[in-house]
């Protein structure tokens, strides 16, 4: 599949493989770098803290052949390779070509630091700022400094705010400690967040007082101290998987695939997280227990790895492939 030449800057300090105890396969973290606050520096590896939904499907033809994408010139109709492609931006009806050199010239500096500039109370960050969570694991001999920062943030109720560069993009980030494990939660920038005023919502009013009292009672009747995980389950994924298993049992539309499009590297988070558990167990503590949100049994690494292997070809960039060519746009920025 032709791809435009990468314009992204190389990773600082390399996304180096994390060592997994027990001779398991080594995995790559998303990013390796250093948290700095004041003059203290803590080398860390970053891993995605969320798994993709188990709903991803691949695009095939009616008889199950693997499909790919091919770019054509809209004028000449000829097939194009990655080298034939360049990005353009349309402004005032004019198409401006943005070359790899142009992108390189504005790229964020090659820094591998997350510099924490200040510590703010966690509850001051509105939930609508939170974008994507990543786990941080101490790298090298930084375990002590890592624990110090985690413990300090938990005792003060504050989280570190800073910015860092990953894959050529600049992210605003909150470093939070959750049960002794630190996360880097990327945040939206202020200009990406709308306000009731900018949306144009009507002026606040008092509302019907009697109704408010009734709502308070209704809310109290439904208030609980904890979440019920069954209310947060992915029912769609479950329905999809049941249907697929049923079809398999009936031998309906089962295909033996070969060469189906490789999983999007972005969506390979599952593998990274599984090995992250081992990484964290080793670097943080032998007694650490890792659970998913169900709060159920500790995760069995070997079993998970086997599952992962079995499903490693599942994910495909279906949305991208399914989008019609006319609306297909390269994304960046």
């Amino acid at each position, binding site marked *: 599949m032709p791809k435009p030449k990468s314009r992204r800057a190389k990773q600082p300090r390399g996304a180096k493989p994390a060592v997994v105890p027990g001779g398991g396969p080594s995995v790559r973290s998303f990013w390796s770098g250093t948290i700095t*606050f004041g003059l*203290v520096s803590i080398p860390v590896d970053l891993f995605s803290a969320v798994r993709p939904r188990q709903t991803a499907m*691949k*695009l*095939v033809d009616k008889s*199950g052949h693997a499909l790919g994408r*091919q770019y054509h010139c*809209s004028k000449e109709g000829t097939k194009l390779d990655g080298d034939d492609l*360049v990005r*353009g931006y349309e402004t005032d009806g004019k*198409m401006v070509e*943005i070359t790899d050199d*142009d992108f390189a010239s*504005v790229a964020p500096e090659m*820094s591998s630091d997350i510099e924490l*500039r*200040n510590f703010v109370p966690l509850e001051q960050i509105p*939930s609508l700022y*939170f974008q994507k969570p990543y*786990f941080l694991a101490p790298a090298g001999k930084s*375990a002590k400094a890592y*624990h*110090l*920062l985690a413990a*300090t943030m938990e005792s003060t109720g*504050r989280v570190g*705010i800073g910015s860092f560069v990953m894959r050529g*993009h600049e992210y*605003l980030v909150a470093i939070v400690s*959750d049960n002794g494990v630190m*996360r880097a*939660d990327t945040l939206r920038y202020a*200009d*990406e967040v*709308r306000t009731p005023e900018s*949306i144009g919502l*009507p002026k*606040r009013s008092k*509302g019907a007082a009697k109704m*408010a009292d009734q*709502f308070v009672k*209704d809310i109290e009747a*439904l*208030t609980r101290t904890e*979440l*019920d995980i069954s209310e947060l389950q992915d029912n769609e994924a479950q329905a999809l998987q049941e249907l697929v*298993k049923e079809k*398999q049992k009936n031998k309906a*539309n089962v295909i*033996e695939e070969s060469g*189906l499009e490789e999983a999007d590297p972005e969506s390979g988070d599952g593998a990274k*997280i599984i090995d992250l558990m081992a990484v964290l167990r080793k670097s943080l503590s032998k007694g650490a227990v*890792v659970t*998913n*949100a169900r709060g159920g049994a500790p995760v069995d690494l070997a079993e998970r790895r086997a599952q992962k292997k079995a499903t490693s*070809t599942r994910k495909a960039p279906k949305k991208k492939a*399914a989008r019609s060519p006319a609306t297909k*746009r390269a*994304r960046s*920025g």
Partner: protein
Amino acid sequence: MAARAIWKGSIELGKHQVAVKMYSAVEDRTIHFRMLHRKDDAPVEQHIVRKDTGKDVAKEDLRKAFALSKGTAVILEPADLEKLIPPQSRDIHLCRFVAPSVVGDQWYDRPYYLGPDGDDESYFALVHALERKKVIGIARWVMRKKQYVGALSELNGYLALATLRRAEQVLSFSGIEPAKTAKPHANELKLGEQLVSSIAADFDPQLWQNDYRQRLTKLIEAKARGEKPARHVPKKVKPQASLADSLRASIAAAKEKKVA
């Protein structure tokens, strides 16, 4: 400029229904590019082709397949996919209410504001009730043929509904106890707290800008005017020392900064 509602629904609570309009709470500032043919700057078209033959596949012949295991997948015909579509509904069903801290940041996916849809009285009554109880509601609803799980809350005097990640996606940890050798000493913890409080502040998102996006926008504008864009020159420095020394030096530096 007022934003457009993307969906209309109705919150069910007790015997009441609160009609709401949904608005995205985020503004996409991403700079989107078009892929062009280098030679003639013509936009490219994307064809779906068979990998083995390279031949185009017609749109009506495209199917989705779900992989069961390595080498085996099941094709889902349009009729199968139809079966998976949940029944259409405008209801936003509230399962339960919990304290906001019960739902960690890692659950939050996409935020939306809800505005009143014709009935301001009950809308703001619900806003006030949520304000008084200081809780958020766990909600489920079907929107555009998909099921969603979300958190209903009061935000800046209005209702907000954020989609949440599914339970299967979120990982959490418990019982992390540092190894003895990695346990910070009491004095180090004290220094750590001093350092944190020396650079403590309120959350002010306006202090942070996406500089890369600004540089990219400037570059595009300059090129559109036919100018040669100015080059961005990166800089770099970095110190290193022992943990306790670094903490002390940092506190001293932070104090100096405050005086100055």
